[in-house]
């Protein structure tokens, strides 16, 4: 009997299994819970409760200002997949998010690599200049590009007419609105990738470069064998975060084309806004939102897997 007890105790010690009640655990960690309580309340108020309420909404026919909302089952989801505009917006959003994220990654990497080569005296100023679009309000980004591409007063218009005698309508004609939206979005946020890559590059020990150079490795080989391995996790981090942000992006595309001309550049975020606050169909709007949440959540899971591996650096 005594021996049995001792072995149970030994097992507990070995595996760290403690027998304690919930009250014990709260008492033991009261400081942690006390510190986290304000955050938790804030998140609950504007995050957990609204999401639960929103998901519930998708099974009703709630409208803005409507007094009664009836339970309609999966009707909203059926409406969603049979709605041409939604299907188009989903497809275009995926194209938009993937191309913007990919180009942001490449331009950001180039910017980080070039800035990393500069001596420290001018580096801070130059990176502040090159990163500056990221810090402007996204709405202002939309206005800035609207003005840059405007058919009457824009730079591109004036420049092309002076150069070749005509200019396409960058925000209305053919494929141009799609290109304009992607270019403007890359402009606004490429610095994010540059900042993360820059931090990763500055943490590469210089001895590794010197050792590789002593072994006769050229510039390209040094990049491939020394730099590249250090950039793998930052790449996943940037891909995941930028994918989520680009899915969520609203202000800049909304200001630039607002989904137009007509509905030809409709993104999911703009469609969600229009359905909710122009057509006042709250339930349907959140149903579109559920699709956006799923896309963002897929990116978030990728991100969490990535930061878990190097928690020291990124958590």
């Amino acid at each position, binding site marked *: 009997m005594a021996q049995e007890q001792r072995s149970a105790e030994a097992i507990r010690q070995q595996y760290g299994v403690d027998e304690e009640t919930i009250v014990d655990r709260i008492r033991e960690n009261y400081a942690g819970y006390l510190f986290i309580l304000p*955050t938790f309340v804030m998140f609950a108020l504007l995050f957990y409760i609204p999401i639960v309420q929103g998901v519930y909404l998708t099974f009703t026919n709630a409208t803005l200002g409507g007094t009664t909302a009836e339970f309609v089952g999966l009707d909203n989801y059926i409406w969603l997949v049979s709605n041409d505009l939604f299907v188009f917006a989903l497809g275009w959003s995926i194209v938009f998010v993937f191309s913007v994220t990919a180009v942001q990654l490449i331009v950001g990497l180039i910017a980080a690599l070039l800035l990393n080569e500069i001596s420290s005296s001018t580096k801070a100023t130059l990176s502040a200049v090159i990163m500056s679009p990221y810090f402007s309000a996204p709405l202002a980004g939309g206005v800035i590009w609207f003005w840059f591409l405007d058919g009457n007063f824009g730079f591109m218009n004036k420049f092309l007419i002076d150069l070749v005698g005509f200019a396409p309508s960058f925000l209305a004609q053919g494929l141009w609105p799609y290109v304009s939206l992607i270019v403007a979005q890359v402009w606004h946020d490429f610095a994010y990738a540059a900042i993360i890559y820059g931090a990763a590059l500055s943490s590469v020990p210089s001895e590794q470069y010197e050792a590789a150079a002593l072994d006769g490795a050229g510039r390209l080989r040094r990049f491939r064998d020394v730099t590249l391995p250090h950039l793998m996790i930052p790449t996943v981090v940037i891909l995941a975060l930028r994918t989520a942000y680009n899915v969520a992006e609203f202000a800049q595309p909304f200001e630039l084309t607002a989904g137009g001309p007509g509905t030809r550049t409709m993104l999911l975020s703009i469609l969600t806004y229009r359905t909710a606050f122009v057509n006042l169909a709250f339930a349907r709007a959140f149903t579109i939102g559920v699709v956006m949440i799923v896309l963002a959540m897929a990116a978030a899971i990728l991100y969490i897997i990535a930061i878990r591996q190097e928690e020291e650096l990124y958590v």
Partner: protein
Amino acid sequence: MLNETRRSKTLLWIGIAILALWALFPYLWVIRTSVLTNFAAVDPGTPYIPPLDVLSIDSFLNIWNRADFPLFFRNSIIVALSAMVISVAFSIPGAYAFARLDFPGRQVLFYTAVFTIMFPWIVLTIPVYDIFFRLGLVNTLVGVIIAIAIFTLPQNIWLLQGFFRQGIPPNIEEAALLDGNTEITAFLRIVLPLSAPAIGAAALFSFLTGWNNFLWVFVLTSDEEVRTATVAIHYILGSDVLREWNILMAAVVLLVAPPVIFYGLAERYVGEGLGGGAGR
């Protein structure tokens, strides 16, 4: 870095110049319009680099008696400042708990906080509008402030917990605990004073995020009295009320300048702490 040749150095500077041009060019066109006279701003004959006689800073002087711009910018400051105070006050204990204190449920909460950073907020505006509508917070500055405070909260927690984790050695608190402090007094007496610079940085960021915010103000308000500068510029651009392009572009310059300048000055100081999504 090593064996720098003249040719690669030239290529480097050409690359840097192209990047700087790419980043600055759209800005320059806006700045150019903002310093033109009313007529020159819409005259297609105005040269790329305008001559001195059509340059004027009138737009920056006249903006203060046009279209309630003083009110809009004042609202922007009120909203950003109040949201900053609330958000920082709430994020300090939260960030400290995530960084240092171990308690059951910490990880789940932490990853939820990570997800809030990545959440498509446009979706959240729908139920939040519904809740605020019932609470009578729609179309009030208070409602906007609460929404933006919570919007900037994850970003602040992220920034501060990184600082607590890396900037403050744990043995400082261990020493304080041995001296008879509890976890709370150790935090208040030792950690908090040491964190002043990081808290200042977090405050600056949340101010600028509030300043830049468009979505919440746009969705939660409709009256002009509670409009901030971002939303006001959106409405003016979409209407025919004010077609003085130089004044509108001057407003854009005033909107963009504070964050760009402050972040530019703080850039080396924060590094990857910007991960919270300042540009949203």
